[in-house]
């Protein structure tokens, strides 16, 4: 991508896990049988009227505060008018020029470099129903029929729009992941990309220099993982220069990421579809978030990832691990918290969590909640290493055993015969035996050939089936050699 600057903005939709929908009392439940959580309001029946969900307003405010936004004391719902079968009223109640939250920012780290991505707004709206296409493999083209499920219609949705501050595909991914972690840490949404409770669209354009005017932007949809988000943006950042360099023009359009083919496809252009004829929603009063309420909501914010990371670093965790742990699974961070509160060394625990534990989970393809590891286990393991009853290598093996459900660290170490021998007198006996069978080598050690120590340590390890604590063995050998 020589000579072109990438200009990327990300739009995020977050489904809130409130008990009831945004404008009616229907339950929010994604596993329910089709059309069982519906009522006149979310079906758009004649005569129905919306009533705003207060908890949703509280939670969007929480999201905005976590993203360093200003919160509007009064904001306005608007009707966004467009016809679509999954939109029961054929308008969406959304927000237009006065959103609940605005002018925030998020720090994003890519390869050790931190940048700030400004956030334009977070506004409140409602989700649509779902179209289920029957026949032709579930795609809309050549489907025999379409079934409409309105369980999702009316679920509270928060739309978060960044400024076009992102400059690479990697940064786009990092922004999305960081945002996702922040939202998940607030307890307002599952924020699972795979389940659709968080969705990302990217707006991508290019320009020749960093103070040239913005180029034509293209909207990319249908990226269902962080990896595909990065790949899709990357693809666009190769496609657009090719188009321009061959004399073509970038068309302002929406493109669909095709995971299988690794390309974006142009979606059938909808003429006039961008005039939504927004007007203030006459069925709803303005949303009021008083200073008092806002501050009360702010007091419920948990420790945010950036603050967490700083705290981990002061505890002695190395920078990379601190970033990973603070920005990753809340459950993993919780284990770290629990273990260190029980006295485990933060640096060691952080290494295990970001290393062995994460690798195990990936191999076994499970979530950490579904493994057997607890903070107590980690603390126990750490104390065993400190006490010398487990070598660092053995500890990793024990960790795997604990995660697989074989029992506590003590039990697993016993069962797998990994308990290290640190007892000095026991090891002295072993050392003396080895010395006894290798007198010439020992003489060389006494005479000053340091590298012979390795040989002796190796022999002692062999004699003790690897269970001798090498540090203690080393020390005994030096004493014996008068060194």
């Amino acid at each position: 991508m020589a000579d072109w600057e990438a200009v990327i903005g990300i739009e995020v939709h977050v489904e809130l896990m409130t008990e009831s929908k945004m404008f009616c009392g229907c339950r929010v439940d994604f596993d329910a049988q089709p059309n069982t959580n519906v009522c006149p309001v979310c079906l758009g029946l004649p005569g129905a009227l919306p009533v705003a969900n207060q908890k949703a307003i509280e939670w969007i405010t929480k999201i905005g505060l976590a993203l360093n936004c200003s919160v509007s004391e009064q904001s306005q719902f608007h009707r966004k008018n467009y016809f679509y079968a999954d939109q029961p009223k054929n308008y969406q109640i959304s927000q237009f020029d006065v959103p609940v939250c605005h002018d925030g920012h998020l720090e994003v780290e890519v390869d050790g470099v931190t940048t700030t991505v400004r956030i334009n707004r977070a506004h409140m709206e409602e989700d649509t129903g779902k179209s289920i296409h029957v026949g032709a493999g579930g795609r809309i083209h050549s489907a025999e029929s379409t079934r409409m499920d309105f369980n999702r219609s009316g679920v509270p949705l928060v739309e978060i729009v960044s400024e076009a501050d992102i400059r690479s595909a990697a940064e786009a991914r990092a922004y999305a992941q960081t945002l996702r972690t922040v939202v998940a840490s607030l307890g307002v949404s599952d924020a699972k990309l795979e389940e659709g409770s968080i969705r990302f669209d990217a707006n991508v354009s290019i320009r020749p220099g960093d103070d040239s005017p913005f180029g034509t932007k293209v909207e990319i949809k249908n990226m269902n993982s962080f990896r595909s988000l990065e790949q899709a943006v990357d693809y666009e950042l190769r496609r657009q220069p090719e188009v321009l360099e061959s004399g073509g023009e970038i068309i302002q359009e929406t493109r669909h990421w095709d995971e299988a083919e690794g390309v974006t496809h142009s979606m059938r252009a909808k003429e006039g579809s961008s005039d939504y004829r927004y007007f203030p929603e006459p069925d709803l009063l303005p949303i009021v978030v008083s200073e008092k309420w806002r501050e009360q909501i702010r007091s419920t914010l948990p420790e945010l990832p950036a603050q967490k990371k700083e705290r981990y670093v002061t505890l002695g965790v190395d920078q990379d691990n601190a970033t990973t742990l603070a920005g990753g699974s809340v459950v993993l961070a919780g284990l770290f918290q629990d273990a260190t509160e029980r006295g485990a060394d933060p640096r060691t625990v952080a290494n295990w969590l970001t290393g062995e534990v994460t690798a195990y989970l990936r191999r076994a393809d499970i979530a950490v909640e579904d493994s057997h590891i607890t903070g107590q286990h980690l603390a126990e393991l750490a104390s065993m290493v400190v006490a010398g009853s487990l070598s660092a290598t053995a500890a990793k093996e024990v960790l795997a055993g604990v995660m697989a459900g074989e029992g506590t660290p003590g039990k697993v170490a016993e069962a797998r015969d990994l308990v290290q021998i640190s007892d000095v007198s026991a090891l002295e006996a072993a050392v003396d035996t080895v010395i006894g069978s290798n007198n010439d080598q020992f003489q060389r050690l006494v005479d000053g050939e340091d590298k012979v120590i390795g040989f002796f340590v190796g022999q002692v390890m062999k004699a003790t089936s690897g269970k001798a604590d090498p540090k203690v063995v080393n020390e005994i050998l030096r004493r014996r050699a008068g060194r």
Partner: protein
Amino acid sequence: MTHPADFTISEAQGALEAKQLSASELLEATLERASLTEANLHAYLTIDHEGARKAARQADGRLAAGETGGLLGIPIALKDNMVTRGLPTTASSKILDGYLPPYDATVVIRLKEAGAVVVGKTNLDEFAMGSSTENSAYGPTRNPWDPTRVPGGSSGGSAAAVAAGSALGGFGSDTGGSIRQPAAFCGLVGMKPTYGMVSRYGLIAFASSLDQIGPFARTVEDSATLLAAIAGHDPLDSTSYPGDVPQFASELHEGVEGLKIGVVTELSDAGIDTEVLTAFNTTLDRLADAGAEIVDVSVPVTKASLSAYYLIAPAECSANLARFDGVRYGLRVNGATVEEMMSHTRAEGFGPEVTRRILLGTYALSAGYYDAFYGQAQRVRTLTIREFAAAYELADVLVSPTAPTTAFAFGAKTQDPLSMYMSDVCTIPSNLTGDPAISVPVGLDTAGLPIGFQVMAPSLGESRLFRVAQAVEDVSESVGRPSIEGLV
């Protein structure tokens, strides 16, 4: 002896309490009147014989247990834009032909709880858009006073039913005058409450910021009784007034001594028919004799209010009627794609006036035009609110004729939509401001057609409104009832 179908609600309450007749008998009298007149009038789209009889029996049970008053056992007509569970609700449109709502409007629930007997659903201009009920997809309703003339609109069916005796009271909706104008044309008391006083949940929306449900009655007192049965906060309607409901009849008979009555000069001069103006001025003289001070009040913005209304209402309706697309309920006309299905359904399901207003509203909201049309109309609306608020500093109530004419003949205004829109010029301001307003019959013109006198009061001023309306009724000769023989 008055035929029970011609009782006022007060008289009916008395008769029921004195056990002179039962609720079931009262209903039968009403149903008999309906069966005599409906072939001619077509006030009703659906008469719910079974449901009404059941409700009357239940009312009789409650009466027997000693309960009295309110609307217990009183036969009521409901405009067919209020959803009734299990009873067809069409908004007089083909697009809802046969639609059976799965829920009751809040107003309907309250009426049932009060023991009212819902006789059936009455005709209207399609989706409440019109001033004559000629826009109904199911045929017009005739004015009981003269069947060659319109009953007014859009709540023409409820007005005709109550005027003819096919119900003792009725409810309609008023967005630009759709209760008050038919009340004037049919010799009834028709009233639009303060916006938010009555729940809109279950009222098929035309213009969300303007619509209100209100009563049709034979007397001012009945009107207050009807309103009291339905008014009050509804948590299902976010625009519903959360405060205490005023005691509507609290100052009903206090008269107008010492009150200042402001004549809105812009609504009471040129453009009003001579006979209507004469009746209006006669009433003013009588009110002055009764002790009121009559003052002229100028509200210049009213000249622009009609235009503002005919941008705001269509704009809101264009969004409110978008849900009628054949996907989930009502008429569906098939097409090769979903878009085609929706557009064929709507083309076939909507009548010309509804189509006209949807197009007008869509245009007024569209990019590049929003500020000049919808935005400008809202600014005029704000000015209307302010000028009326200032006017209420100068007078306790404001008055005008209800409509520029008496009931016109069928077809007289259908050729030119704008001339039809002009019928609303006096009633529209109260919809824009949200203030309550009422029409009281004050006489008949030389053709024997009723003339309506409009009183307007500040928001939440229903008690004062009813008080002045009662005084108007007291000083006027009763218009009586239309002759039924000519309708049979």
